[in-house]
C-alpha cells in the first residue's frame, strides 16, 4: 500500500465502509434493546446475530486500513505506543474543540439539555486524556 492507495476511491470506500458498519453495529444494539422490551425473541435474535456480524465487518475494513492509516486520526495503526497516541489525538480534539463547540451551539440554539450532554462528554474525555497520558508515561 502506498500513496496511490491514499488517493484512491477504494481507500475512501473502505473508510466509509468502516464508518457505516460501525454505526450499524450500534444501531443493531440499540434496536435490540427495543425488540427485547417488546418481547420479540425472533427479531431480537436477528438483531443480536447481525450486531455481532457487524463487528467482524468493521474489523475487516480496519484490517485493510491498518497497514496504512487509522481512518479517524489519519495516523498509521502500529504498536500500542502509536495507537495510544492516535486515540489520544482524537480525545484531545474532542475535549478541547469539538464538544465545547457543540455545547456552545446547542446552548445558543436553546437545546440546553443537549448542551449539558456535550459538556458531560467533554469532561469524560478530559478524564480519558489524563488516563491515556498517564499510561504513556509509564
Amino acid at each position, binding site marked *: 500500500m502506498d500513496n496511490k492507495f491514499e488517493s484512491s476511491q477504494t481507500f475512501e470506500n473502505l473508510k466509509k465502509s468502516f464508518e457505516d458498519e460501525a454505526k450499524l453495529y450500534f444501531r443493531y444494539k440499540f434496536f435490540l*434493546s*427495543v425488540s*427485547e*422490551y*417488546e*418481547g*420479540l*425473541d*425472533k427479531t431480537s*435474535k436477528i438483531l443480536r446475530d447481525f450486531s455481532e456480524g457487524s463487528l467482524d465487518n468493521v474489523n475487516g475494513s480496519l484490517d485493510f486500513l491498518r497497514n496504512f492509516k487509522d481512518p479517524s486520526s489519519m495516523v498509521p495503526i502500529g504498536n500500542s505506543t502509536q495507537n495510544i497516541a492516535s486515540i489520544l489525538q482524537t480525545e484531545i480534539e474532542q475535549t478541547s474543540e469539538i464538544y465545547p463547540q457543540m455545547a456552545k451551539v446547542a446552548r445558543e*440554539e*436553546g*437545546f*440546553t*439539555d443537549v448542551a*449539558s*450532554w456535550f*459538556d*458531560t*462528554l467533554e*469532561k*469524560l474525555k*478530559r*478524564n480519558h486524556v489524563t488516563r491515556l497520558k498517564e499510561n504513556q508515561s509509564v
Partner: protein
Amino acid sequence: MNDEIIVLSEIEAVRTNPSMYIGSVSNDGVHHLLFELVHNAVDEAILGTASKIEVTIGPDFCSVEDNGRGISIEINPKFNISNVQLVLTKLHSGSKFRKTSDQFTTGLHGVGLSCVNALSTELKIEVKNKTGLYCQTYKEGNALEALSQITEAKESKISGTKITFYPDKKIFKEFSSFDFDLIYNSIEELAFLNPTIDFSLNSQIEKISFDSKNGISGILIKALTQTQKLFGEDIKFNFKQNDLSFECIFNWTTENSTLIKSYVNGVSTFLGGTHVNAYRSGLRNGLNTLITEHFKGQWEGDPLQIDEALDGVFVVINCKVLHPNFEGQTKSRLTNFEIVDLIENEVAKQTISFFKQNSKNLMIIFERLQTLRKSRSIAKRVAERIFLQHGTKKINEEVYKKQFGERSKTWHSSAVWITDQELLKAHADHFELSEDAIALDVCCGSGVVGASFKHKVKKVIGLDLTPEMVNLSKTRLDEVHQGNVYNIPFPENAFDLVCTREVLHLLPYPENPVSEIYRVLKPGAQFIVGQILPFSEVDSAWMYRIFKKKQPLIFNMFQEEDFRKLLLGAGFVDLKMTEMNVWENIDVWINSYETTHLHRHEIREIYRNASSEIKEVHPFKILPNGEIHDLWRWCIFSVTKPLS
C-alpha cells in the same frame, strides 16, 4: 521453560481465581455457595428421593441437610477415592452431568459443591445411608482424613446428606455474617415453587417451617400485599405438553408498573427469556382477539401493544423445561425457542376462555385498557411539549404542573431520598443563622426540606408551581405560595434563608433561578441546596442517560465543578459542601408517571451493562431477584450572599 509452567489443582484453581467460578467474592458470593447447596438438595427432591430440606445458619457457618439418598460413599474406581471426596474436590463431577434423568432438575450445579469446599476454611460432610453415618472434614478444600464411619445404621430407611461449611474470610473479605432476610426470602420462594418439599430454616433465634401449600399463589400473594388487585380472584393458567410444563398466576393491579416473577425448574429467571416473552405475547394476542370480537368500533387506533396489555399486571410464571438453555452462567434468562409458540398459543387461548366465562371482568379490563390508551396519548403530548420548550428561554409551566401534579399523588413513596431523615438533617445542619430567620423553600414539593428547618427558624414559607404540591406542603410549612422560581413573587432582600433540593437540574438556564434566589436573599443570608451529583466525570455520561430516561425534564447533569461555578457565578461566597451517600431503590424510583415502560426497561439495561470503568467509581448492586439499588452521591452546598 517447563519450570515456569504452574499446574494448579482444581481446588487451588478455584481458590486462586474464585470470581471466575462463583461470580464474585462479595457477600453475594458467600450466599451463592449456600444456594448451590440448597439447589442441589432441591434437585434431589425433584428426583423424588428427598422430601425435607433443613438450612441452619450459625454466626459464621451454614449447613444444608436433606433426607435424600445420601451421596455415594463407594470408592470410585477411576480416581480411587470415595465418590463423596470426588464431588467435593473435582469440578464438574456431579452425577447430574450424566443427564440420564428425565426429571426437571436445574442441573449443572456440579461445579458448585467443589467450589463450596474450596472456598471454605472448614467443611464437614455427613452422609447417612442404610449402612450407617459417615463423616469427613476438609480444610481449605483438602480432606483432613479419609471418609470414616461414625455409627452403624439403626434404621435402614434413614438417609441423607448434611454439609456444614465456614466461608473462608481470607477470600470473602467483606463477609461478617449470613443475611437472614435474603436467605429467608429465597427459601420461602423455593418452598412455594416446590410445595411437596418441607423446608425449614434454623437460626440462633428461631426455627421456621415454611407453609407452602398455596404453591406459586404464595409468591403472588406476597407481591400483591402493597397494592390493590383489579379482580378479587387471581387468574391461573396451566398446561403440560411433552417436555414442557407451564403454570402462571396473575392479576391486574392499580399500579402502572408490571411485576414479572419467573422461574424455570425452580430457578429464578429474573431477566425473563423466551417463556416470559411468550406469556406476554400470548396475553396481548388473547386480549386483542377479545377486543376485536366484543368491542369492535369502541377501540381506537393500533391494536393493543404488549406493554399496554401488561400494564399493572403482577404475574408469577413457573415453567418446567426438560432441557433448559440459559444465557450466561447465572441462568437468569431462558433461551429455548421451541417452547415459544406453544406457550404463546396456550396463554392466548386460556385468556380468551377466561374472559368469555367472566364477561363482567372482560368489561372491567376493556375499560382499563381504554383509559390507559387515553392517558398514554396525553403523556405523549406532554412529552412532545417538553421538546417544544427547546429554543425558548421561558419554561412551559404547564409541563411541570402536569407532571408534578400527577406525581404528588404518590410523592413520598416515589423515591427513598425524599423522606430520608438523615439527608434532610444534613441540609438543616448547614444552617448558621439566628432563630428569628425567615426561610423560603423554593420548589418545595411536599415541604419536607423546609420543614427540616422549622425548629431552627421563625417561619418557613414555601413556593411551588404545582397547585397539588402547594396543597401538600401546606400541612408542613407556615405558608405556601404558588409561583415560578424564574420569577420569585417576593421583593429583594426578603429572606434570611433559601433552601431547595434536587431542583436545579430540571430547569433550563439554571443561572436565572439562582439569580432570583440571590435577589430575594438579604445580604449575609444563606442559600442551602442539595443535589445528586456523579462521583466523578467517569460516571457522569452514564448517569445522564439514566436520569434523562427517568425524567425527560432533565436539562443539566451537573458535576461538582459546574455546581460550584453556578453558585459562585451568581455572586455567592463562603461555599461549604458536605457529602452523603444514600441508597436508592431504582425499581421504585423509575415506577413513575414520567418514565415510559420502554425507558424503565432501558434503564435496567444500562445498569446491567455498566462498564467496569463505571463500576470502579459508582457503587450499585443488582440483587439476585433483579432489583437494582444505586448509591447516590448527595452534595449539600451552603453559600452566603455577601454583606456588600
